[in-house]
């Protein structure tokens, strides 16, 4: 049978992601590197879509591409004008890069090996009862027939609801802790990045900080 489009799509997006990731490390300008990373993230978001994690896919773009990377770009753009390249880039020794690549290969082998050892699950296998999500269970129990494509599609359409429900029930505490962490990070970032002691800030006027 011919190669399915999903695999083709996967190959295309994954290939772009890997190429962009490697480019991120090899391009001269930090801004280009950041853009490469944005690209990787968008590719990943598309892969998330293919994995039916719709909510996460969109969150990935909103948070990573839309906020985190914009912040990166802000900072980079303050430091580097368009023509400039990363000054510290030149001083990296060749042996370091070679060693790092060897290490990366080992790491890749180890991780892939661990993934392989922990087993490969095919989607064509039907999930066991223990594997089903909380939403799938009642459906599976009420109907004698296995989950049809349609019911599973219906369930997948509920993805944001499911994730949301889980976040606000079972994982409420981690969720709230995360919000606390965000608050702390916000305060910390403001304190760290503040230009100077308040005495000087007073003379600079209010508009300088906008």
């Amino acid at each position: 049978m011919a190669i399915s489009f999903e695999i083709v799509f996967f190959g295309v997006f994954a290939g772009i992601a890997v190429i962009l990731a490697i480019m991120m490390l090899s391009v001269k300008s930090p801004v280009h590197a950041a853009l490469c990373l944005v690209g990787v993230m968008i590719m990943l978001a598309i892969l998330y879509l293919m994995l039916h994690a719709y909510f996460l896919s969109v969150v990935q773009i909103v948070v990573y591409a839309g906020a985190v990377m914009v912040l990166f770009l802000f900072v980079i753009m303050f430091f580097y004008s368009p023509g400039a390249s990363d000054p510290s880039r030149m001083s990296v020794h060749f042996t370091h890069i070679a060693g790092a690549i060897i290490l990366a290969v080992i790491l890749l082998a180890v991780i892939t090996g661990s993934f392989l050892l922990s087993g490969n699950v095919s989607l064509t296998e039907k999930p066991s009862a223990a594997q089903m999500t909380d939403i799938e269970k009642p459906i599976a129990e009420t109907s004698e027939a296995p989950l049809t494509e349609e019911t599973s599609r219906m369930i997948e359409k509920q993805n944001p609801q499911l994730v949301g429900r889980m976040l606000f029930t079972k994982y409420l505490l981690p969720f709230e802790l995360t919000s606390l962490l965000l608050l702390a990070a916000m305060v910390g970032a403001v304190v760290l990045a503040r230009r100077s002691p308040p005495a000087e800030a007073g003379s600079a006027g209010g508009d300088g900080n906008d």
Partner: protein
Amino acid sequence: MTDVPMFYYTTLAALLFSIGAVGVIVKRNPILIFMSIELMLNAVNLSFITYSRYLHFLEGQVYAFLLITVAAAEVAVGLAIIVALFRSKREVDVDAASLMKE
């Protein structure tokens, strides 16, 4: 409908993670190191979501969600540190910030 083997996704995640790790080690610019870390985090997220999909385990997406949030917090603080570092050192090089050595 032929599904993509899970192994493909996990391999992609491993590959991205490794590239990120290399970036962390090779790069001297803290911003690029940071971006490499973000890449590693993304790779982890990918594996979470892969498992979520293939093991019918919605928690994977929840973990990924929390991870994204934490990464955002981390970036906010980290970039603030980099900005502060730049202000004090007038250059952006983590090796120059090896104050701990003394």
